[in-house]
């Protein structure tokens, strides 16, 4: 299958290892990965902060860039959620744009959805002999409803010890500009999440979103905690 990677602006800029890992996993499985360099950002940041006009422009760009792709995969449930759940309302009132969105949306998926849901895989041939805990990000859980797809993938990784996270489904407090506009509240939510993670004694905390991991990782390293963060894709790409 020819798979087009939407790497997301955040992963592109500060966490490129997640994007590289997606490429590695998919190529190892025998798929062709393409990267369309015209891609930038899905517009989520603008949309969720209230800047609809700017978000609509970015949505138009996304649809133009990926319109003819067979399937688009992103290492971010949040960005895929924006495309799948919010683009239709952004397109409202422009019939041509609406049609383009309707046609594209079913082809845009998050990594675990692609692997488990579309390709029917659980074992992607990864090996990662570490103690890992999984944080189900809010948008993977409640916007995209990926269910246990990421957990199934993790359970099939050789050598990986998966440990439960207390209050796993609680938000990490990121929320895009919320982390800055309501910094103290965000930090209070994050502190509880970090405590749960540290209590697992895991070496790695993983998730389906680089953004939440950036947030969690920022507190882990600030607190001098030994736990590291790694995107789900990085674990699935590991085969040493």
């Amino acid at each position, binding site marked *: 299958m020819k798979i087009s990677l939407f790497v997301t602006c955040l992963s592109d*800029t500060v966490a490129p290892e997640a994007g590289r890992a997606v490429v590695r996993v998919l190529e190892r499985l025998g798929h062709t990965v393409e*990267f369309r360099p015209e891609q930038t950002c899905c517009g989520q940041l603008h949309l969720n*902060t*209230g800047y609809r006009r700017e978000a609509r422009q970015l949505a138009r760009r996304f649809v133009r860039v990926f319109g003819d792709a067979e399937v688009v995969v992103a290492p971010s449930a949040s960005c895929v959620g924006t495309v799948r759940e919010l683009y239709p309302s952004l397109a409202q009132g422009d019939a041509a744009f609406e049609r383009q969105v309707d046609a594209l949306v079913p082809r845009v998926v998050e990594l675990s959805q692609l692997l488990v849901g579309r390709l029917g895989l659980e074992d992607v041939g990864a090996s990662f002999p570490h103690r890992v805990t999984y944080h189900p990000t809010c948008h993977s859980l409640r916007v995209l409803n990926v269910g246990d797809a990421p957990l199934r993938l993790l359970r099939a990784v050789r050598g990986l010890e998966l440990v439960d996270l207390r209050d796993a489904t609680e938000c990490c407090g990121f929320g895009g500009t919320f982390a800055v506009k309501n910094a103290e509240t965000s930090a209070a939510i994050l502190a509880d999440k970090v405590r749960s993670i540290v209590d697992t004694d895991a070496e790695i905390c993983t998730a389906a979103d680089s953004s939440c991991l950036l947030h969690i990782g920022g507190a882990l390293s600030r607190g001098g905690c030994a736990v590291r963060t790694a995107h789900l894709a990085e674990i699935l790409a590991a085969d040493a």
Partner: protein
Amino acid sequence: MRKGFPAAAQDALGDAQLRRNLLVATHAIRAKRLAAVGERPDWEELREAGRTIKRRVLRHLDAYLIQFEQAVERAGGHVHWARDGEEACRVVQGLVTATGQHEVVKVKSLTTDEIQLNETLAAAGIDVLETDLAELICQLAGEESSHILVPAIHKNRIEIRDLFRRELALPHLSEEPRELAEAARLHLRERFLRARVAISGANFAVAETGTICIVESEGNGRFCTTLPDTLITILGIEKLVPTPEDLEVLLQLLPRSSTGERMNPYTSLWTGVTPGDGPREFHVVLLDAGRTDVLADEVGRQALACIRCSACLNVCPVYTRTGGHAYESVYPGPIGAILTPQLQGPGRADSLPYASSLCGACYEVCPVKIDIPEVLVHLRGRIVAEAPPWRAERAAMSALAWVFGSERRLGRAQRLGRLVGRPFVRRGRIRQLPGLRAWTDTRDLRPVASQTFREWWASR
């Protein structure tokens, strides 16, 4: 006046005792709710039915209101229409004054809190007694409610014991829940028996029959609605349901969502007046106070479907850290964040739609499926479109949109960011970044990668 959410949240965030009280209490209700909901295999169908009923009411509200008015009057009650809180207060004050009484007992009602009825009546020399235990605690403490269902959730037993010792002159009271409840019971009993006028809100009002329904746990509502001669009920116009059969759905959804009970201990329904049984005079005040404006907003109007269960508060990562007072409104939590700004109009509570990480936990538990995140984002859009706020943010957002408008500009911005950020990088992390202190005060930041993804791909 209003501090705005970020500032108002600070008191609570800095109060370790309060945060502990909140987390313990909300987690306890959450677990009960989950168990009660889990018993119903048809929970999702019930939610859908609840949503449908409330949406139908909103769609045909004009007709249902007229039908309700006629039904109440047919049953011997009187209906008053109030455009805003001030008018509603004036009507109620007039009705109480006409009875010649100087004290009233009250059933817990958010709507009366919303219009600050107690303050108006007190100013007119009328003594108002809250009879719901938690409302009584707030009233004695001179504090605002901080939760829709459990207004004193911010207080623990020790704090309540100390309050009762002081205010009810019971120096030897213990913090045993039974003893605390008994103290309140004795305090209230005498007043119930003496009261000639009562004021209530309403959980539901049936358009077809003119019936009012209130649900409660303590029996204080039953006292208030049966013993006095005059009963005055105030309700927002969105509280209507079409027929008594609709209560079948909503009375299943409400207790399970709110207290985690299959059924609440007391459900009172009354229709007009009945000679020789209950109040001799019955008045209904129908309150608009911004609700028709909310109704005009196609996305925002779903907030009016709320049945005040408070499930969204208990699961909200924000509310459970900040408590209710940070919202500076009678309607706190996620539902408050979408209801308050709409009821109060533009410019009044603009920080509230931003008081959410958009985690979606509220939508997941809402018994009438209000898509709270959708409304939050919609209201943010309205704020940005109507009243350009925060000039620096607007400039930053425009700049960012311009950068994202071209892949070449994005590539250049990434290289520039790498260069500018370099002096701040310590062992691969940025620990302090001027201009982004809100983030870096508590969290490290990752710098622009030494090789961005697009650079890596180009070099492949």
